[in-house]
């Protein structure tokens, strides 16, 4: 099979270059249009901050990887971009590369499968559709059959994972996020995703707090007196850029008195730290800073890494299954499949109705029904044998026949 792929990714290029070649949705559309007009019969373009990938079935045999790289460099004419930053794949390696991406083992954060969302874009035809269906099946199997995507692998998500190890139902809990920067926003979004009951933002600059609160449907608390309200919150996440300690042990101690042994979680994801680490000594206070959250992240990454061989096995199985299907797209297997399908229908109907015929007529029934099938299939069989087209057109024709008569689905049902 002549699938061809070009990739610029976290293994081949530095972050500034990856960011520079990142394609927006409009740019993907433009590249896709050009690829369809000039290079491919079918194709697909993927782009995230960590990778930009182009896959396609070449329209002619002259097409090389250089032509495909040109699609990117035309849209992103960067001086520093050169061949060494690209990876090239062809045929089985290209299919395998796609399976690796979708299953998350080629991601910068192992197990990250956000790329799933991108798969829809492109001009996917008969063959690419099957390749991507197989890729998505591989990705889903990797998630459900292994731990490749289990656990948090970012500090802010690890904070939420830890919170979930303390509280049962976050929809009945209240959280205060101190700070309105990027880290605070990510943490607040994670809490929102977990259906936190009440989310409040406080920040030294009130307008910034209001802006973030507006984005995530949270309320705002005045920074000047937020310490008086600490006891109202089960979870406090602090991620400010303040140079010193914002919350002292005494602040937390006095708020805990009002909480009557109700646990409080303090997540200090600021650098330098916002909360006095001594607060961890207070009963029912769970204090964690970036270092402790990194332990969770590293453990989860180690678990994910250990799952790679299992995912690779799934990929091999799906590659085998895909090529079994692909190799069936030849004249002989298609004719055989078509005849088997008709014969099974004939045999089933004869068996169902055999008792309606007298014993002496039963043999005739077999002969007559077989003759009908042979006559129906005579012309299609002859035509299929005549087909001498090879490559994409031949494969596509046999594929259409198999799909039209449901040969593969009948086989799978059996």
């Amino acid at each position, binding site marked *: 099979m002549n699938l061809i792929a070009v990739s610029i990714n976290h293994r081949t290029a530095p972050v500034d270059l990856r960011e520079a070649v990142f394609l927006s949705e409009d740019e993907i559309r433009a590249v896709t249009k050009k690829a369809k007009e000039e290079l491919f019969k079918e194709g697909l373009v993927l782009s995230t901050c960590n990778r930009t990938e182009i896959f396609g079935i070449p329209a002619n045999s002259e097409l090389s990887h250089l032509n495909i790289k040109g699609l990117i460099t035309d849209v992103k004419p960067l001086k520093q971009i050169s061949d060494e930053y690209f990876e090239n794949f062809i045929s089985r390696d290209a299919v395998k590369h796609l399976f690796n991406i979708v299953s998350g083992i080629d991601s910068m954060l192992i197990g990250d499968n956000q790329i799933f969302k991108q798969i829809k874009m492109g001009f996917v035809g008969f063959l690419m559709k099957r390749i991507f269906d197989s890729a998505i099946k591989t990705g889903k199997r990797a998630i459900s059959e292994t731990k490749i995507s289990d656990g948090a692998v970012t500090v802010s998500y690890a904070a939420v994972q830890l919170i979930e*190890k*303390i509280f049962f*139902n976050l929809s009945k809990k209240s959280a205060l996020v101190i700070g309105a920067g990027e880290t605070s926003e990510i943490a607040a979004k994670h809490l929102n995703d977990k259906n936190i009951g009440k989310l409040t933002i406080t920040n030294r600059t009130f307008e910034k707090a209001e802006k973030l609160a507006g984005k995530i449907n949270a309320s705002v608390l005045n920074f000047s007196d937020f310490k008086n309200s600490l006891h109202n919150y089960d979870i406090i996440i602090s991620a400010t850029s303040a140079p010193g300690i914002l919350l002292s042990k005494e602040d937390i101690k006095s708020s805990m008195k009002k909480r*009557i042994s109700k*646990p409080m979680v303090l997540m200090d994801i600021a650098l330098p730290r916002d909360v006095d680490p001594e607060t961890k000594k207070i*009963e029912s206070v*769970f204090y*964690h800073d970036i270092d402790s959250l990194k*332990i969770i992240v590293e*453990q989860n990454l180690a678990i994910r890494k250990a799952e790679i061989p299992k995912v690779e096995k799934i990929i091999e199985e799906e590659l085998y299954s895909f090529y079994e299907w692909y190799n069936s797209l030849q004249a002989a297997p298609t004719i055989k499949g078509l005849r088997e399908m008709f014969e099974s229908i004939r045999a089933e109907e004869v068996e169902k109705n055999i008792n309606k015929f007298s014993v002496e007529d039963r043999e005739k029934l077999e002969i007559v029904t077989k003759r009908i099938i042979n006559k129906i299939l005579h012309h299609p069989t002859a035509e299929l044998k005549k087909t001498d087209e090879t490559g994409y057109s031949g494969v596509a024709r046999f594929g259409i026949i198999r799909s039209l008569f449901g040969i593969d689905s009948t086989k799978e049902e059996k």
Partner: protein
Amino acid sequence: MVSLIHFLNILLPLLYFFSFLIYFYDFMRDEKKFINVKRIFLFLTLLIHVIYVIVRIIKFDHPPITNVFEIFTIISFAIGFSYFILELVTDIRGTGPFIIIISFIFQLISTLFIQDLLEVKDVLRSSLLGAHVISALLGYAGFTISAVYGFLYLVLYKDIKLNKFGLIFNRLPNLEVLERLSLYSAVIGFISLTIAIVIGVIWLPSAFPDFSYLDPKLIGTSLVWILYAIGIASKVLIRWRGRKLVLLSITGFVVSILSTFLSNFLARSFHSFY
């Protein structure tokens, strides 16, 4: 039939031990394929335990509640069965080995010391005795499960505080769930023990006219009841929660074990029947 009883008596601790091993292996490895295997094995163990109890009742003509070792086999079953139902209803995994090991210990002690009693005292043939013993056993099974969940709460609490994110952190349910399981088990245990005490108080004067209110069993049970009453009241009235609450539950369990031990083995009580 006696040989069947003896065979099952030896088989049961082995079955509980294998159930524990399967649950423990699943706790260590967390493999999805073990979810059903371990449940089926525990179910079969409980089924064989029911057969054992029924065969005993038929052969010895009395329910196995007349001495502490007969009662231990029922407690073992009650704990295992309660956990089995709890796992089915809540689908909370990861706590099984810690409960089943308790069932195993009770059954092992029972297996080692149980006797084939054909004759029992007349006082043990009272119709109120069954209700008294069953409710008391439910009470103690509840307290045992509550204490196990309380203990797991403390271990996880400490691990989270100390940034230890190992097996306990990854496999156990969250602290709030452990606290609730401990509390609900304690409440069920407390209600059952209250019923057992009420029945006992009604039945006591007619069964033992010369009993004393200073009997070690009565004092021990009252102490256990008071401890759990304080725990539940503090939860409802003062809104205590977390570590304080589970510590009370564990203390209650330790006192109830000591009370059983004292009244059955060391002190002379009207409650000793053999």
